[in-house]
């Protein structure tokens, strides 16, 4: 059995965590991401080179892990399990457009859905198991089952999991932290994940 020790949900201009709930007034996704990044007060210039999906993953994981640190765990003891319905379509479309002039190498490297996990792992020094699922809709049962399996491995202590769905001006990003340690929050079940996602 594991526990949900924190979460961060970003959608429709709103950022919700277990400790805070606020809005960022921004006209476009790009403005929202830039404002969200500047509020983090971190110096990570690579943020500007990421595609929106990775930027959202970075933003959500940064907020989540600022509230609940994972630094006490060894890098190999932390896993990442993410999902979405749009794969990397958001960047695929922009890459396709870039090919009309000259294919952009920096866009091309983001034309895989799981790159967002790499960015999160690089930022937080995570070296555990990674998995990315494409599903038609947010699937708390899938996350609960898979993450629970991952956490059953002896060396795994925590898992950053959730949903990073981004396409054009639409975004719905929900990350949570599941930990083995008891008494860290809600029990990690599909029902509790769904509750946090819909609140």
């Amino acid at each position: 059995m594991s526990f949900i020790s924190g979460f961060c949900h970003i959608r429709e201009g709103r950022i919700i965590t277990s400790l805070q709930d606020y809005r960022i007034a921004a006209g476009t996704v790009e403005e929202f991401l830039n404002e969200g990044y500047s509020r983090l007060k971190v110096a990570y210039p690579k943020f500007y080179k990421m595609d929106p999906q990775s930027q959202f993953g970075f933003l959500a994981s940064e907020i989540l892990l600022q509230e609940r640190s994972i630094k006490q765990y060894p890098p190999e003891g932390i896993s990442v399990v993410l999902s979405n319905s749009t794969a990397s379509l958001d960047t695929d479309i922009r890459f396709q457009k870039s090919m009309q002039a000259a294919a952009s190498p920096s866009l091309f490297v983001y034309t895989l859905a799981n790159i967002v996990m790499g960015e999160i792992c690089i930022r937080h020094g995570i070296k555990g198991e990674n998995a990315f699922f494409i599903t038609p809709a947010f699937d708390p049962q899938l996350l609960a089952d898979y993450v629970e399996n991952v956490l059953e491995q002896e060396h795994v202590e925590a898992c950053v999991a959730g949903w990073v769905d981004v396409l054009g001006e639409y975004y719905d990003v929900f990350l949570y932290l599941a930990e083995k340690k008891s008494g860290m929050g809600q029990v990690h079940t599909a029902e509790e994940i769904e509750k946090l996602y819909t609140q």
Partner: protein
Amino acid sequence: MADLKVQIIDALNLKHLKPEDIGDDQPLFMDGLGLDSIDALELIVLLQQKHNTKIANAQEGSKIFMSVRSIADYITANQKN
């Protein structure tokens, strides 16, 4: 060179920088501006698209992309009109 710096910032999404933050002779890679191999590919595209300049010999890349000045010198010497 100021225009070239603007183009580099735009092409490489260096939004945390202003043109005046980049020295004419500042190294662009490694401990300098910290550019990486993907940035090098974007610079090649930039030279082709904006300056009609191709790098004939890939081995020369590290010298050409040493700094903004070295890029400007290469464009001046090799631009096809």
